[in-house]
């Protein structure tokens, strides 16, 4: 697999640089995933001639101390885990204090599903749709886990599902769903309302 050299996010970045880093990291990761997906598809066609290797497994520990096993192949979808595997830090259980067991189990399920070979795009899309068909708070937990573990496909899927929650709702409904205070000054509100007057069929 070819790698793009990516900097690890350090903990002490200022807010705006962290944001810039997230967006640029997201872009680079998306590029990387599409590169490796292309490589994988050329590799899988010739894999039948290779001898089967023993499956390596990585152990993850949730915030409550529960452990979950994930095959290395599936774990590679997480840039964070991939780096650890590369640096040989993945032989002992990896603590993930930010992620609850309930969520980690689902994230492992997601990675396993997306590492499967021979799944057609249509059924994978349907599976993904079911995966995010959960409560808002759970989707948010998935987003935060995907962000922490740097899994671009899961991040994309979950952000899109939040966008889908927003799309089609009136501003009042959006404020209610996400518990947002509008905080407009009366002049601002008037201006936005004027500029946003439109209808659709």
């Amino acid at each position, binding site marked *: 697999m070819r790698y793009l050299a990516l900097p690890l996010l350090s903990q002490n970045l200022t*807010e*705006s*640089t*962290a*944001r*810039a880093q*997230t*967006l*640029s990291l*997201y*872009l680079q990761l*998306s590029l990387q995933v599409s590169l490796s997906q292309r490589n994988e598809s050329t590799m899988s066609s010739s894999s039948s001639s290779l001898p089967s290797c023993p499956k390596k497994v990585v152990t993850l520990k949730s915030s409550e101390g529960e452990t979950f096993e994930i095959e290395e192949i599936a774990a590679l979808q997480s840039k964070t885990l991939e780096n650890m595997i590369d640096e040989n830090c993945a032989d002992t259980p990896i603590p993930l204090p930010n992620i609850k067991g309930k969520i980690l189990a689902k994230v492992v399920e997601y990675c396993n599903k997306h590492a499967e070979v021979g799944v057609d795009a249509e059924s994978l899309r349907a599976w993904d749709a079911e995966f995010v068909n959960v409560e*808002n*708070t759970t989707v*948010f937990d998935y*987003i*935060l886990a995907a*962000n922490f573990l740097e899994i671009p496909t899961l*991040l*994309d899927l979950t*952000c*899109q599902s*939040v*966008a889908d929650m*927003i*799309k*089609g709702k009136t*501003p009042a409904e*959006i*404020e209610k769903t*996400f*518990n*947002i*205070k*509008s*905080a*407009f*000054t009366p002049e*601002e509100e008037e201006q*936005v*309302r004027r*500029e*946003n*007057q*439109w*209808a*659709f*069929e």
Partner: protein
Amino acid sequence: MPIPRPHQPAASSPPPKLLIPGLPDDIAELCLLHLPYPYQALARSVSSSWNRVLQDPTFLLSKTSLSLSLPYLFVFAFHKSTSRIQWQALDPRSGRWFVLPTMPCPKSACPPAFACASIPRQGKLFVLGGMCSDTKSPMRTAVVYQASTNQWSDLSPMRTPRAFFAAGVVGGAGGRIVVAGGSGPDLSSSTGAVECYDPREDAWREAAGMGGNGMVRYDSAVVGGRMYVTEGWMWPFMFTPRGAAYDAEGDTWREMGAGMREGWTGMSVVVGERMFVISEHGDHQLKVYDPDEDTWRYVGGDRFPCEEVHKPFAASAVEEEEEEGGVIYVVGSGLQVGVGRVRLGKDGKFWVEWQVVAAPKAFQHLSPCDCQVLYA
């Protein structure tokens, strides 16, 4: 890309409210970036912080660089009986139409007299010139529509008033708008004046004139850094139409090749480096221009959906690089849209597959003037 935050006052103030409570702001912005057109613009009404973030110019840049923006077809139409102008956007993937806010223009503007141009990747379309129906005098106005904010704004007016003229964008994303020719101060004359607009400076500059008395446009197209203008075939079809080609880099005009002039018999679209026309007469066959031989060839594949899509046509196209082809949109009466997927076959010949996107009943009295594809 960092989106600048407002300066925090020195006195102790409550912590800035999160865009979406429960998510850090950079993640919330990623979610907002996934909002499709036009919901992104509508979401500005949700809160002051959403309004600020969604209007920021770097927001659209991020959307483009993350490949989250998709092509939409923007159609300039008017009511057949009242000439009232209405712009609407079609999401070709879902078949859903969105009516745009009213375009600023004089009440009695004559719709076909305007010229449109666009910078698709920036989500901008420009509507220029035109004519007032009562005074029959050409106009100098220029307005721009931005998909990211769903707003029309005024631009510096053109130097020469024009109606029924050619407009195109040369130089891609960093490019300039070239406007050429058109009807003069009274409709019986035409002008050869040409000018060039730089969007970054909001300024019009004179460019090399077309020569002679200029030309009233039937159709124009930009291919490979050149803008081609033809006056089109006029009844009783006795004389070959005049045509001219403008080289943007060299700021020079020359006569259009005879083959191109003679075979340009319908609305044109450009897919990548190739020009196609949808023949105005007969079965509305699709033709592609071969620059090496200065000739047009028919494109194989499906018949044009003549039964569902009727003249007058407005056409536009978007390239699909990975597929080595593109999609051609032909908008007909009542805003029925013919969608043609064009591919280059292994034999080096193009072929097309047509589908129809049916229009809502509410659009049946609309007639199209122009259409543009924008990424939003």
